[in-house]
C-alpha cells in the first residue's frame, strides 16, 4: 500500500517538474500574455550570450589575447563548417547557424548549473531544461524552415522554387510540399523528446539513488546527449539549407 502511495507521489513530482508554469502575465493592448518559466530562462540565456560575446570581443587587437582567441576559434569553426556544406554562400548563413548552435548548447547545458536542494535547504529557483518546452523547439524549427524557404526564393527565384516542387516528376508535388511540414516537425520533436526524456530519466535516477549515481548518469544524459542534440539540430539545419540552395 505504501509502495503505491510512493509511486503516485513520484509520478506527481515528475508531472510537476515537467509542467511549464506561468510565472506572470503581461497586460498590454487588451491582451494578457502569459510569461512562462521557459521564456524567463530564454531571456536570461540571451542576456548571458549577448553580454558574453560583447565581453569577449570588447578590445579587438591584431595579436589576440585569450578571450578574443576563444571567440575567434568558435567563429572560425562555424565559418569552416558552413563553407564546407554551403559553398560560397556559407558566410551569409554562418551567423544564423552559429547563433542557433550557441543558443542550443547554452540551453541544453544550462540545467547543469541549477542549484541543488537537500539537507533542508530549498533553493529559490531551479534551472530546468529550456527545450523540454515544445514551444521553444517548435519556434526554433519554424525559424529554420523559414530560412530554408527564404533561401530557396533568394537563390532560385519564384520560378526555380516552383520548378523544384514538381521535380523530378509532377506527381511528386504533394510529397515535396509535405517536406515543408515534416522537416520542422521532426526537428522540433527530436530535440524536445530527447531533452524531456533525458530529464525524466534523470529525475527517476535521482529518486531511486540520490547519492553517487546522478553525477555519473548526468554525464551521459545531460552533457553528452545535450551536446549531441545541439550538434544534430544545427547540422540538419545546415543540410536543409544546403539542399534548398544547391
Amino acid at each position, binding site marked *: 500500500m505504501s509502495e503505491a502511495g510512493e509511486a503516485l507521489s513520484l509520478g506527481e513530482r515528475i*508531472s510537476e517538474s515537467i509542467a511549464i508554469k506561468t510565472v506572470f502575465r503581461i497586460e498590454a493592448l487588451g491582451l494578457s500574455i502569459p510569461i512562462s518559466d521557459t521564456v524567463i530562462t530564454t531571456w536570461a540565456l540571451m542576456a548571458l550570450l549577448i553580454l558574453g560575446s560583447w565581453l569577449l570581443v570588447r578590445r579587438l587587437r591584431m595579436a589576440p589575447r585569450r578571450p578574443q582567441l576563444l571567440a575567434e576559434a568558435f567563429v572560425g569553426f562555424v565559418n569552416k563548417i558552413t563553407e564546407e556544406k554551403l559553398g560560397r554562400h556559407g558566410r551569409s548563413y554562418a551567423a544564423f547557424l552559429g547563433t542557433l548552435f550557441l543558443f542550443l548548447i547554452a540551453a541544453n547545458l544550462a540545467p547543469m548549473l541549477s542549484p541543488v536542494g537537500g539537507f533542508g535547504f530549498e533553493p529559490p529557483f531551479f534551472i530546468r531544461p529550456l527545450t523540454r518546452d515544445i514551444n521553444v523547439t517548435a519556434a526554433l524549427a519554424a525559424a529554420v524552415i523559414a530560412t530554408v524557404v527564404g533561401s530557396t526564393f533568394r537563390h532560385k527565384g519564384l520560378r526555380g522554387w516552383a520548378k523544384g516542387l514538381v521535380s523530378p516528376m509532377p506527381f511528386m508535388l504533394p510529397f515535396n510540399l509535405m517536406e515543408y511540414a515534416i522537416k520542422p516537425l521532426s526537428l522540433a520533436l*527530436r530535440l524536445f*523528446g530527447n531533452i*524531456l*526524456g533525458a530529464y525524466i530519466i534523470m529525475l527517476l535516477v535521482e529518486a531511486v539513488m540520490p547519492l553517487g549515481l546522478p553525477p555519473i548518469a548526468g554525464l551521459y544524459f545531460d552533457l553528452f546527449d545535450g551536446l549531441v*542534440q545541439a*550538434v*544534430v539540430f544545427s*547540422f540538419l539545419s545546415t543540410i536543409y539549407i544546403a539542399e534548398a540552395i544547391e
Partner: protein
Amino acid sequence: MEASSAAFIGAGIAVLTGLGAGIGIGLATGKTSEAIARQPEASGKITGSFLLGIALAEATAIYGLVVALMLLFK
C-alpha cells in the same frame, strides 16, 4: 477497463518503437567498427557521421517515448 489503465498499456506499446531504433543503431555500430578496422586513419570522419546517423535512428525511439510520456503524464 478504466481509461487510465488503458493509457498505461498504450504507453507500454508505444515504447516498443525502441526495437527498431535498437536494431538500427546496432547495425550502424557494427558497420562503423568494420569501417574503422579497415581504415583507422579515417576514424574521425567515420565517428562524425556515425554520431549523426545514430541521432537520426534514435529519433523513432524518441517519438515512441514522447507518445508514452504524453499518455502517462498529460
